């Protein structure tokens, strides 16, 4: 079940991505509608984070291309926001919550310009939206896991983008924070944003997302949640890997084969 939309916010066209010369995502081809709350769901090692990183240009593509708002990432970078996994950074870093939120404005600033009063105000507003205004000057290592995640979200909000890609925003947060975050994401959707979230929990996925992407080394499904979260498709996603695909990946890796004969060409 792979449903495509016209005038997509995001088009992932035939994308193959590999990690250390081993393909982890095969021929993913999908489009996402605008103003949606999208969940990316799949077992561990299914390539969920890889997909997001590939969209953000953080990993090289072996084939295919990605288009956002019908353009290449370079042209519309300011309209896209990325929230990395919380564990990916060192929370002992000497920075306050406000500092982190302010980083969201850096993309708009020029090479030399320093963040000023305007940026500070934007960052404060973003912190307010996630309910962290009282912690603005708190050092980030003193925050709880859920608070750190909120600070990360506020940084994305300060970017004021139209498309948000979030890598496991619910990992390691308490239930109250999770509810608060999903509420916030819903509000964002109401104001016309599209939010893509890597998510672990099948139970909650049903209520959270209006569009779901099922992934396990390949795209199993992409479409409205009620059509994709079916027992049949879930069995396909979680019922183990495709042996042949894993074997070919392994072969490519071991024998040092090029993943693709030719470099990907942008259309």
């Amino acid at each position, binding site marked *: 079940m792979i449903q495509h939309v016209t005038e997509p916010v995001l088009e992932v066209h035939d994308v193959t991505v590999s990690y250390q010369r081993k393909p982890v995502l095969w021929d993913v081809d999908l489009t996402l509608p605008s103003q949606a709350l999208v969940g990316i769901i799949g077992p561990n090692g299914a390539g969920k984070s890889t997909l997001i990183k590939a969209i953000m240009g953080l990993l090289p593509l072996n*084939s295919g291309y990605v288009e956002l708002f019908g353009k290449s990432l370079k042209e519309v970078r300011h309209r896209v926001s990325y929230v990395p996994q919380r564990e990916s950074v060192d929370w002992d870093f000497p920075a306050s919550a406000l500092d982190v939120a302010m980083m969201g404005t850096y993309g708009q600033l020029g090479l030399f310009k320093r963040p000023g009063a305007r940026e500070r105000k934007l960052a404060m507003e973003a912190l307010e939206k996630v309910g962290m205004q009282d912690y603005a000057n708190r050092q980030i290592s003193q925050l709880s896991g859920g608070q750190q995640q909120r600070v990360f979200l506020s940084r994305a909000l300060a970017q004021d983008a139209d498309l948000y890609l979030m890598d496991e925003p619910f990992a390691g947060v308490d239930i109250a924070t999770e509810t608060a975050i999903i509420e916030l994401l819903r509000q964002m959707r109401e104001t016309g944003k599209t939010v893509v979230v890597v998510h672990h929990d099948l139970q909650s996925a049903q209520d959270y997302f209006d569009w779901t992407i099922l992934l396990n080394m390949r795209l199993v499904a992409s479409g409205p949640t009620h059509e994709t979260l079916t027992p049949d498709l879930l069995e396909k996603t979680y019922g183990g890997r495709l042996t*042949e*695909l894993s074997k070919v990946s392994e072969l490519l890796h071991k024998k*040092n084969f090029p993943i693709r004969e030719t470099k990907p060409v942008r259309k």
Partner: protein
Amino acid sequence: MNTLWEFLSMSDANVRFVTIGSILLAASSAVVGCFTVLRKRALVGDAVAHAVLPGVCLAFMLTGEKNPLVLLLGSFLTGWLSLVIIDAITAHSRIKEDTAIGLVLSVFFGIGILLLTAIQHSGNEKQSGLDKFLFGSAAALVGQDLITFGAVAVLLLLSVLLLYKEFKLISFDMAYARTIGLPVRGLELLLTTLTVLAVVVGIQSVGVVLMSAMLITPAAAARFWTDRLGVMIFIAAAMSAFCGAAGAYVSFTAPAMPTGPWIVMLLSLLAIFSFIMAPKKGLLARYLLQRRLRNQMTRENILKTLFLLGETKEEFGHSYSRQQIMERRKLPLLRMQGGLKALCRQNLVKKDSAGWALTDAGRKEAQRVVRLHRLWELYLTQYLQVASDHVHEDAESIEHVLTPELEKRLEELLNYPTTDPHQTIIPQQP
């Protein structure tokens, strides 16, 4: 040449001592180094090496003489202390390991330098030669020292030999070692002690600054030649021993030359040689493999193109000019030329006045590739739900990789198909 002969003949007892000493020192640090590198603690050795200096100076200041045993003891103590401090800093503060290593290394060394220079300026006659610890001098090894250091080196090698399998296990999988009841903590302590010992004896020949190379470099180089720990240790020790002997030779011919840097230089060159030239893992081997694969792919692509050209006419013996082949499939001209020639040699294509044609054997081979291509396309559409107009590019690459076992498996999975997603016939096994 004469000096080399004189050196090799070892007629001079002194030369004999120095050479054997250097070989023992170098080999023992390489052996221990293999474990340090595999346990990803390579740079810790660097810290220990630098931390030895204040110990040497303190021991000298306290006793007022250069007794090798006392110096050894002093350096052993500060070497150990540095490790304890690194662990304490990382465990009890938010300082990360690399910072702790850098800090301990430079502070201990700084204190060592302070003491060393203070001693030098104090006018004590016996101090001369203490600064040999900075860059090492194999020639400085004489009688008494040699026996001490040689004994330590032998002790080191023996303990590694006796506890080989335990060390192997804790280097590979600490958690597992603990579950099967090995005294992991004690073994780790012992291994660390051995590292410190190796450093302490090794600095005689290379000095404190470059000592870490004696631990890291041979191990890193040996790793490229083998996947087995025993062999790796042996190769590392052999490389080091050779360089140690060469260092002794340098000391012998040119006493003004610092021995340590020469040993390290030789070792590094050996290591870089290994990185590039080692079979299988070396850069060159990997590059050549890559090229061979590319060539194989080009050949298979040519065969396939000829097959596809024939398929439209259902006649496979026909000859096609290079132009026609290129029209059907864009191939880099140079590579195609090589590919055609190689195929000719393998008797898979033949050349005539009109161009190139498949031989019978060539047709079979081409058929195999086309078959794999179409099977994979079918697999992609059925199992990965890739749209049929998107599968071609993927199959173009994977067709070269699929093994006969995978081919069989795909056939079963797809229920012995006869047509691909584009409704083209899948050629049967020739």
